[in-house]
């Protein structure tokens, strides 16, 4: 239990871009975000003694050597895809409260547009695809090769069982796009979206259309976790980690043979996080929900307990997840309309909201916020944060 004993004290983010690309290496762009987080916190690199990098985009040793972290003593990488940043937030809280490290940096980022695209990685490197040899031998020969296709299988089944509609998927896309209009840093700033636009967009992997899919992006972000005691000497008001948890679906390495097809890692993790936090989903003033595709928002709202199974479609309709609605979701525009930076920007945005620094998209008097991660074949992570 680390409730309220650890906090986020620094955040950093690079600009987001597509064409022609960041012009930096994937390590370089992450280092830029890491330096911004150090500056934000008022920390020197030498004080960072824990680093938890995202899978496949750089090792802790390289971060430490590049930044000048001479006393690296806690390093690990969670292999949970997009659930890694929030899972690493939890692990950082465990590390600083146990004494394994004093200041833990969680960097993440990539040249997701100009570099090796997601689909190419999935096609060529068995070690980097969820499921590994299972995907290679039982999915890829049949043309199931990439994330929108895996998750489309879940989305289709949800539509069948619960009557979830394309318009409800569209409501998620529209909410994210609406929020992006209030965020000058978002890739889709200045590009509003209508339901007609959404429904007219071509299918990629049905039921997913182009506008159900997040925007491939070059960009990076980072955050720093330490104890509440150490935070007192730092520049920013801390954002407290009330509770955090991570979980795996079962089986985690194979997507088709799940007794409950909709049970994901978050189904297990969310009750643990809320129990530790001592609050319920209804207490959240906002949520940053990992939105690789629209349906994953609906699914996670259900599995995290913001509504019951099957009610996620109705939950997101009629402005339910827009600013001013019952639960503002992804106030920065999310992966769908701000940028796909592997979910780490969801943490950054939660911190901004709880510091009251979100500008035109600020949730009034935001006190408690939830952030989730989703990755691989349904790995989940969640943190409950407060100001």
């Amino acid at each position, binding site marked *: 239990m680390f409730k309220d004993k650890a906090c986020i004290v620094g955040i950093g983010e690079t600009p987001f871009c597509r064409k022609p690309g960041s012009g930096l290496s994937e390590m370089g762009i992450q280092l830029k975000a890491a330096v911004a987080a150090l500056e934000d916190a008022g920390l020197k690199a030498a004080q960072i003694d824990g680093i938890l990098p995202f899978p496949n985009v750089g090792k802790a040793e390289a971060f430490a050597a590049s930044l000048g972290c001479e006393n690296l003593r806690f390093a690990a990488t969670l292999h949970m895809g997009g659930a890694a940043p929030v899972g690493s937030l939890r692990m950082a809280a465990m590390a600083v409260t146990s004494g394994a490290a004093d200041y833990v940096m969680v960097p993440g980022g990539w040249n997701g547009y100009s570099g090796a695209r997601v*689909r190419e990685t*999935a*096609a060529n490197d068995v070690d980097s695809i969820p499921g590994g*040899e*299972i995907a*290679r*031998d*039982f*999915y*890829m*020969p*049949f*043309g*199931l*090769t*990439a994330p*929108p*296709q895996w998750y*489309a*299988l*879940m989305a*289709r*089944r949800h539509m*069948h069982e619960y009557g979830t509609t394309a318009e409800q998927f569209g409501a998620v896309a529209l909410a994210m796009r609406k929020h992006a209009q209030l965020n000058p840093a978002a890739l889709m700033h200045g590009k509003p979206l209508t339901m007609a636009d959404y429904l007219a967009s*071509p*299918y*990629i*992997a*049905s*039921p*997913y259309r182009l506008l159900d899919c997040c925007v491939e992006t070059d960009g990076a972000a980072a955050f720093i976790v330490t104890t509440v005691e150490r935070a007192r000497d730092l520049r920013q008001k801390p954002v407290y980690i009330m509770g955090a948890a991570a979980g795996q679906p079962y*089986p985690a390495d*194979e997507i*088709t*043979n799940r007794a409950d*097809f909709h049970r994901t890692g978050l189904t297990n993790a969310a009750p643990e996080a809320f129990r530790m936090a001592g609050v319920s989903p209804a207490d959240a003033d906002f949520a940053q929900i990992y939105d690789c595709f629209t349906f994953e928002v609906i699914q996670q709202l259900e599995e995290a307990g913001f509504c019951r199974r099957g009610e996620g479609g109705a939950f997101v309709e009629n402005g339910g997840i827009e600013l001013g609605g019952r639960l503002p979701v992804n106030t920065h525009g999310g992966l769908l309309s701000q940028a796909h930076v592997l979910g780490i920007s969801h943490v950054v945005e939660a911190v901004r909201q709880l510091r009251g620094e979100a500008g035109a998209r600020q949730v009034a008097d935001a006190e408690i916020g939830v952030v989730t991660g989703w990755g691989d074949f349904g790995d989940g992570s969640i943190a409950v944060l407060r100001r």
Partner: protein
Amino acid sequence: MSQNAISYDKPQPSLTGLHGEFYAWCRDRELRFQRCKGCGRHRHVPRDICAHCSSMEWEWARSSGRGTVFTWTEVVRALHPAFAAVTPYAPVVVEMEEGVRLLSRVVDCTPDELQIGMPVEVDFEKVSDAITLPVFRRAAR
């Protein structure tokens, strides 16, 4: 090598270990799943041990070949270059009578004819001398 083996450019399963044994049966045009000798449950994908009873004793049990469509996606834009020429196509999850589910394709209908619950039965598609994939056709109920 046959013409087929040279021209087939899509991802292929490895033929090693238990995965290889599964595909060896497919090459003989038989769909078989592991059946636990401890508790009698079928399992897929192949694994060394039964997750229900921890028995490591099992046999390759011949499937009835019958199942129903559980879910699917119609891939309109290929996300792997080898499938670009065959879009649209639909990876389908089939729920077998034995209780296991299998990712495959239904080869005798278009994606927009697919329905959840549609009865299907196994067939086999030889893609090279070494590899035959289990695929499905529509079946009478």
